[in-house]
């Protein structure tokens, strides 16, 4: 994902802002990391460049 996407997306549960924590970057693009809700604290993973904003009850456990 591009960092600009942060201006658009929010927490699917309470629509609050998300805080970005980058783990891995490739040529400006964020490949892996975490988006954390500044209100409820729910953490959403970024995997293979794609943020996973499925609410926790719909997210399958990812194997490490």
């Amino acid at each position, binding site marked *: 994902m*591009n960092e600009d996407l942060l201006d658009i997306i929010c927490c699917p549960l309470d*629509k609050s802002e998300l805080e970005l924590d980058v783990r891995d970057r490739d040529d400006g693009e964020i490949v892996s990391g975490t988006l954390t809700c500044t209100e409820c604290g729910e953490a959403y993973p970024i995997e293979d*460049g794609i943020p*996973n904003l499925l609410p926790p009850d719909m997210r399958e456990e990812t194997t490490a």
Partner: protein
Amino acid sequence: MKGQEWYQADDIAEEYEEKRFSRGGRLIDRREKQAVLNAIGPVEDSEILEIACGTGRFTVMLAERGADVVGLDISGPMLKQGREKARAAGVADHLEFLRGDAGRLPFPDDHFDAVIAMRFFHLADTPASFLSEMRRVSREIVFFDTFNRFSTRSIYNWALPMGSRLYSRWEVTRLLDEVGLELVGDEHDFVLPYGFYRQIPNSTASTFRKIDTTLGSLPFGDRLASVSYWSCEV
């Protein structure tokens, strides 16, 4: 949601386009893209969200026409195909994919110029809740299609891997009322259903397509159509 596991399998995602949009299916692809462009007009510099974007057929086309597009889908493997396609088309800078729930969209109110969902509502178990989320995040246009009750679609519907919810005109207008959307345009097409075109070679498809559109243009043609495109405003 129907067929969720089927839809999210890697091999299904990899074969998805080949199975549906080669052979006679190419005509379907073209018609659907035209329907989207008819509904949302010139898209340059507009912000567009597609719900259930799958492998990115529409998102890539819209990004190529200068829109800033976000594609949302439940399936990681489908989005992976979309990302590769966006890169190949050179539009990755104008197109973002993310996984999310269509019933709880991770966007603020009134954010997009247009929100579209193609081939989504036939899988929706609670269509009103999804449509109302689309309306919430759009400031102008909401566009979607349905497969119709009382059409040729009914004949092979039972055989599909995901099942399929069919709608009548009355059901769609009631849904729009319920969520507060105004219908501004509707098109009805495909007297011969999608499944038929997928089975026939491209060489004969255009002949059947001609028969199809001729039937569809008759006075009762709309009522025979298996697909409807609904263009709405907030």
